[in-house]
């Protein structure tokens, strides 16, 4: 080479990466670290903000506890980190106050919330994005009571009918009238979302609802809830969406496979046996490699006090073998951690999420009776050590308000496409 000696390199701040490379680093950080990076210097602040604003930030997040906390301005939504027990204000939260809503589910970073008229909305607390779901009056057993003096026929209350899928229809009691803000307290048990609504693809919300813990679903294109009939008195406890279909488990341990992809749903029983145990809360989960299904049973005890305080005393995990039908085998959680409550029942490997404790089960309150009747009792939230059956605190002292009940969330910073 005969090139002249090149000029000396221009002086650069050797300790400052250009923004695009900083972004590459930041996208691998979970949001608490990203927030701290924003407080380092102006370049880092601008980069962190741009990343959050533009919706390119998609680092997989460890689940955290979302709860309402008292603040100077009323109540704030906060997130609690599991590793360093730090609490965070929900970043860039611009949505409605979380405390005005009932929270009935959480999947893919989206809360399923019920407003003061008992109408359901999906809400991503970190982006403030919202999607309204079909009206509660389109649920099979609900009819609106209209204001007779109002020409527009505004809804003043709801009628709830007490029947299930048995044919011929049998009403177990006379219909009951619920006020607009009252129905949500009774009707909603749990809701799960099939996929992240912000991905832009079609999604389906499956709802476990009263009376009698039935199933109804709504696709993103639906204007009404679609009731699923079962021809007998079946009560559902949990539901997950795996391999493009819903798996729903009853309180008796019967597992139904429900496919809503076509114009009509199809369903079939894939595990028939009735459990020896009843009236427990049953969850359905799948291992992180999408292999094993597991049934999770939660045993609780309520104190003799008034009001009673509910505490989780034991959690069992059994392998649900769809092939061998050897279902009643203890499942070895190994490196996995499980999240149960009203959230989408989630099983993650502590190898992938080092903040998590392996072989532990993180739980929040979802006891129907306690949540409906006792909104001012301490919530049943903790970490269950599956090795020695001990129960620990998530964080102490507990920073959350007792209502709305805290829920596990895997924050998602992906924003809805603008045209939605």
């Amino acid at each position, binding site marked *: 080479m005969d090139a002249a*000696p090149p000029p000396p390199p221009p002086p650069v701040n*050797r300790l400052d990466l250009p923004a695009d490379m900083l972004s590459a680093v930041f996208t691998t950080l979970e949001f608490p*670290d990203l927030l701290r*990076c924003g*407080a*380092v*210097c102006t370049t880092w602040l601008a980069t962190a903000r741009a990343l959050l604003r533009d919706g390119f930030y998609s680092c997989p997040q460890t689940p955290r506890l979302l709860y309402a906390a008292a603040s100077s301005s009323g109540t704030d939504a906060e997130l609690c980190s599991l590793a360093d027990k730090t*609490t965070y204000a929900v970043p860039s939260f611009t949505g409605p106050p979380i405390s005005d809503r009932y929270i009935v589910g959480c999947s893919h970073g989206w809360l399923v919330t019920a407003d003061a008229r008992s109408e359901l909305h999906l809400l991503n607390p970190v982006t403030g994005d919202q999607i309204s779901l079909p009206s509660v009056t389109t649920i099979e057993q609900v009819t609106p009571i209209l204001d007779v003096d109002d020409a527009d026929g505004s809804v003043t209350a709801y009628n709830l009918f007490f029947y299930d899928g048995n044919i011929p229809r049998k009403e177990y009691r006379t219909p009951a009238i619920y006020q607009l803000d009252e129905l949500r307290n009774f009707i909603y048990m749990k809701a799960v979302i099939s996929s992240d609504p912000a991905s832009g693809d079609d999604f389906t919300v499956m709802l476990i609802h009263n009376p009698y813990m039935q199933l109804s679903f709504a696709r993103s294109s639906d204007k009404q809830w679609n009731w699923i009939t079962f021809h007998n008195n079946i009560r559902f406890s949990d539901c997950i969406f795996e391999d493009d279909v819903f798996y729903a488990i009853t309180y008796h341990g019967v597992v139904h496979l429900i496919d809503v992809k076509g114009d009509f749903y199809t369903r079939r029983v894939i595990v028939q046996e009735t459990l020896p145990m009843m009236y427990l809360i049953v969850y359905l989960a799948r291992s992180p490699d999408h292999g094993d299904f597991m049934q999770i049973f939660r045993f609780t005890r309520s104190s003799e006090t008034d009001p009673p305080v509910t505490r989780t005393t034991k959690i069992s995990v059994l392998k649900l073998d769809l092939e061998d039908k050897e279902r009643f085998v203890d499942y070895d959680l190994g490196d996995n951690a499980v999240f149960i409550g009203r959230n989408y029942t989630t099983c993650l490997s502590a190898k992938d999420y080092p903040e998590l404790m392996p072989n532990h089960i993180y739980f929040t309150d979802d006891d129907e009776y306690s949540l409906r009747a006792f909104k001012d009792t301490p919530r049943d939230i903790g970490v269950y050590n599956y090795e020695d059956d001990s129960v620990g605190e998530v964080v102490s002292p507990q920073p959350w308000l007792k209502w709305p009940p805290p829920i596990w969330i895997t924050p998602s910073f992906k924003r809805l496409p603008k045209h939605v």
Partner: protein
Amino acid sequence: MATGSGAAAAAADAEEKESGSRMITLTSNEGKAFVVTEASARQSATIRSMVDDGGCVDKGFPLPNVDSKTLARVIQYCDEHGNKEAHTVDERAALAKFDKDFIAELDADKAFLYDVTMAANYLHIQGLFALTTQCIADTIKGKTPEEIRTAFGIEYDLTAQDEEEIKEEDTHA
């Protein structure tokens, strides 16, 4: 084109067979020449595409954005990943061990780590870029803003207004 397509294809074939044994010259911004195997140079997507486009293999590649010290270190990575096989479990383990030691050394000198990251980005060496950005990310994890500044020797330049806004939107524990 002077030759027929058949001859061109034959020439390309011959070149293909030869690649890996051919040597390529990379020149740092200080004018220092580094001769590497083509397999090593092909770790860089930038150089790979220039070579595949029938570029100036003989003339070598001047790299005006990379100094000699950084280039030597980058080549060390490329040699290891380009010249060695990674088919067996043992071979992969050896490469993983190399990466671990390689990045541990860089981690001790943050300014140099930055330079290597910049060069990996410039040369599009995906594996090396992932390795260095992951190292930077690991250094950041769990640290306070002050600790991060110390770790990377970053000057504090936030305004009072920035601080106020950060306080409003961020952690309060």
